[in-house]
């Protein structure tokens, strides 16, 4: 039973992590119908920025709680800036052209960012300090769940609540929904589409950065390549839930997290990544619109 609980909570951790990345994917896809391939790299840049801030502040001798909070905030700020800039350079000039072009441009951006970090920093795995203290009340169950994981659950839950509020009840959220439905029409009624798209990228990127800092603290290491596989898996999760739908992204992430966790726990850990891809292929074959997605027909 303990083993089951451990796998269950491990799956919940994975799912929350995927959710933090998948939300950005699904928001961008919902608004401009682009698979933002560079999203995983944004997450990686967030983790790296966090590491740099943590190292500098640790040497200055700050309090560890203050450091982790400040590191997460600065990482979010920087990732948001990266997301904003990437959209302006690689996607905005391509708006209105073929979707294939935008996707290839996104792949190029992803390749560029990976190698940018590789060249500017290092290709090695860097150890990532875990600054979240182990809480006393968790000691008896310490072998099942760690305090970092609890922080990840809480962060993911808070992000979801905040996003739901943002989309449902604010002016910007209304504009976002309008642009997602019909870009030209919302332009006609006075929505500043460029601003909405930039805003979406900023929000999605900063959520990914939060995920990046927390995940790297949890796993304990980071390198320039972590964004790629995390990005792909988060994309699988987003598709699984129905891309473009935010509750779908969260649900898909949790389902993927649990299935992966139980699969590796009970069957085999060699084929962990194969499993995620097989899962993706199966979903797309049998339910291309995902669990919560609507299947829409092509407009002629």
């Amino acid at each position, binding site marked *: 039973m303990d083993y089951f609980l451990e796998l269950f909570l491990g799956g919940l951790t994975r799912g929350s992590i995927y959710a933090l990345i998948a939300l950005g994917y699904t928001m961008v896809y919902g608004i401009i119908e*682009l*698979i933002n391939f560079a999203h995983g790299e944004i997450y990686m*840049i967030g983790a*790296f*920025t966090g*590491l*740099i*801030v943590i*190292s*500098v502040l*640790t*040497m200055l001798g700050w309090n560890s709680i203050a450091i982790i909070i400040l590191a997460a905030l*600065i990482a979010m700020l*920087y990732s948001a*800036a990266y997301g904003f*800039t990437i959209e302006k*350079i*690689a996607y905005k*000039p*391509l708006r209105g052209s*073929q*979707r*294939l*072009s935008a*996707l*290839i*441009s996104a*792949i*190029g*951006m*992803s*390749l*560029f960012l*990976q*190698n*940018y970090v590789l*060249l*500017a*920093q*290092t290709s090695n795995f*860097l*150890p*990532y*300090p875990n600054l979240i203290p182990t809480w006393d009340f968790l000691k008896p169950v310490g072998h099942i769940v760690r305090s970092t994981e609890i922080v990840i659950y809480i962060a993911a839950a808070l992000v979801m609540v905040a996003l739901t509020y943002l989309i449902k009840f604010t002016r910007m959220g209304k504009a976002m929904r309008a642009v997602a439905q019909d870009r030209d029409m919302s332009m006609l009624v006075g929505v500043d589409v460029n601003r909405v798209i930039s805003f979406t990228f900023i929000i999605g990127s900063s959520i990914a950065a939060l995920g990046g800092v927390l995940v790297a603290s949890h796993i304990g290491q980071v390198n320039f390549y972590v964004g790629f596989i995390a990005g*792909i898996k988060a994309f*699988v999760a987003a*598709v699984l839930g129905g891309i473009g739908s935010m509750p779908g992204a969260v649900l898909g992430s949790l389902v993927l997290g649990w299935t992966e966790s139980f699969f590796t726990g009970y069957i085999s850990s*060699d*084929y962990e*990544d*194969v499993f995620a*891809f*097989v899962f*993706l*292929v199966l979903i*797309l*074959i049998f339910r*291309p619109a995902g669990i919560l997605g609507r299947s829409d027909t*092509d407009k*002629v």
Partner: protein
Amino acid sequence: MTIYQEIKKSLLVSLWFMFLTFPIMVIKVNTIEQTIDWHWWRLAGVGVGVFFLSFLWRYAIARKEAGKKKAEISGEEKVALIPRLMGNPRFYIPGLIAALILVVAFPFVFSMYQTNILITALIYVVVGLGLNIVVGLAGLLDLGYVAFYAVGAYSYALLNYHFGVTFWMALPIGALLAFIFGIILGFPVLRLRGDYLAIVTLGFGEIIRLVLENWNEFSFGPSGIANIPKPSLFGLQLSLQQSSIFIYFLMIGLALMTIFVVRRLQDSRIGRAWIALREDEVACQAMGIDKTRTKLSAFALGATWAGMGGVVFAAKTTFINPTSFTIWESIIILCVVVLGGMGSILGVIVGALILILLPEYLRAFSEYRMLVFGVILVLMMVFRPGGIISGVRRIYKFEGQNTIAENNNA
């Protein structure tokens, strides 16, 4: 006044990028020894570089916009210089003869090292032309193309290891196996559109690589397969150099055959169906084109060439392991097609030669190779989506009773 504004704009952009690249470029932490290196000069480099590049960027964007407007007004597409030259026998016949002489003389004039590099480039020409069928003609973005390349390479290596199958037997077998894999992988993705298709093919590519890496009993895992024999020539014993020259001519032959077949395919019924599918799927179905068959044939035929390329690759390097078949290999092949010009045969050849030969001769910058590839992909998509030599779109004009149209206009 405007110059002043332009400078101010560039200055702001440059400041923004200095802010953006500050932590990653400037601060390099060593988490083990708890030390920090500061690289301030990099920040200065970014600032100055971005300042000038932003002028260039705005100029290029403005030119692109102006070009678009002009095309809209005049309503006709200009035929680019190179296709125009290619269409003129006065230019292309001497060009062809010169190319032929160069190709034949190359391995005898230059060293074996150069020949080997050119063989690699030729493999990419063949594989790129195969991918060109899928991406350029049929418009299906395949990010797992390297899987078929791996199928070809492993089928030669394994068949040779277990049954002693020779290169010449393995070439058609590898092609056939890749063809079959193309159909198997093509079936499930038929219903998917554009970007979903790209992700699923990427998934397939990774599945095949991960299986090759983990299934030790079958593929010898990460350690790979060594001592794959080079191709034989009627049982003659060839020295290392002779065998390189032989593979070179073999590749030339294979490339010529590929060019011939792809050209014929392009003009055939199925080729036109691919192009129609690329342009508009719904209209294409309405015209009575069998979508399933068209897509599957594109996948399978594209895969066939990757399979053949894979067999030659295994024979050339005599050693293969799964690290040769990562997703980035797929992306390099995609770069070849995109850079050269999607849908254009000459474009793919030029793209392969540039992308494979340049990094070889710019060894000093080899670590920047992937970085530059990324930049190329983005810039090409933004400024020249058609590639260096874009495929010529066939244009049909209504000729004859122009007077009616003119009368109606008046």
